[in-house]
């Protein structure tokens, strides 16, 4: 067997074939119907982004070659600065810890990225598809900050939590990786098994401001 074939075999495509339909952990909630029948105006908007491609990258932040290669493969800068993120066309990278980043891409592109890393990333590293264990929610609107403040014990003031900052923290009784997308927009990467619980929590916490569900 050629070396190229060996390389490809080491990376596994986690998407099922066309005959099997992928289902988000909130499939049962039928959010399309909730969005259509629910309120169209309110202080908080919640949106679910199903089946996003999520990958955990672990490598050596002190290795300039590795950092440069990873940045090139991702198309955005891989930052060593704690609690930062970088985003580009169809890709976002979140600092998770001094040697760990969480990458999001289109669900169908995760395997391509893994393969590209396998071919071109130098040194000792790990890139693992964690999309099956996580899912993505977005909380936005005039009162989005109020909902976040109820739910997580971090300071959401713009001075300490500027746009682009990433924080992993306790969220309700679960956990979340929170990224500020705009003054009034937050992205939550949460555990798949807690998706239903957190959805209900956010629904309840948003009620007093008026909740809009968007798909």
């Amino acid at each position, binding site marked *: 067997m050629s070396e190229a074939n060996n390389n490809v075999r080491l990376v596994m495509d986690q998407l099922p074939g066309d005959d099997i339909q992928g289902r988000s952990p909130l499939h049962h909630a039928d959010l399309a119907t909730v969005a259509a029948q629910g309120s169209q105006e309110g202080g908080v908007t919640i949106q679910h982004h199903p089946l996003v491609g999520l990958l955990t990258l672990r490598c050596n932040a002190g290795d300039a070659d590795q950092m440069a290669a990873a940045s090139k493969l991702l198309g955005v800068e891989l930052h060593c600065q*704690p*609690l930062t993120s970088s985003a580009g066309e169809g890709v976002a990278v979140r600092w*998770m*810890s*001094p040697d*760990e980043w969480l990458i999001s891409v289109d669900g169908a592109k995760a395997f391509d990225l893994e393969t590209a890393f396998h071919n071109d990333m130098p040194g000792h590293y790990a890139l693992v598809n964690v999309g099956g264990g996580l899912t993505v929610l977005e909380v936005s609107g005039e009162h989005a900050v109020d909902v976040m403040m109820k739910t997580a*014990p*971090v300071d959401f003031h713009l001075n*300490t939590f500027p746009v682009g900052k990433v*924080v*992993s*923290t*306790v969220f309700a009784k679960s*956990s979340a990786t929170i990224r500020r997308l705009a003054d009034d927009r937050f992205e939550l990467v949460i555990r798949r098994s807690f998706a239903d619980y957190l959805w209900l929590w956010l629904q309840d916490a948003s009620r007093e401001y008026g909740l809009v569900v968007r798909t």
Partner: protein
Amino acid sequence: MLHIFCPHCAEYREEEEFHAKGQAHIPRPLDPEALSDKEWGEYLYFRKNPRGIHHELWVHAAGCRKFFNMTRDTVTYEIHETYKIGEKPTVTAQS
């Protein structure tokens, strides 16, 4: 509620994001086979319980998930410093 500075995230976070992991700076014996049962037992099970300055191991469980050390006063609960694994504390019971 303690307000703890994570040396990896480089900011203060609430105590509920962390777990305490007991006494810090316990080196694993280089040659365990050479130890007596008493010495091995003391390494495994016996910990200091000082009144005052204590060096502790903590983990930022809900955050960056990294371990770090803390110098804390067990009487006042004051946290004097947090520092990365491999670094030496600047505040000690002697100083």
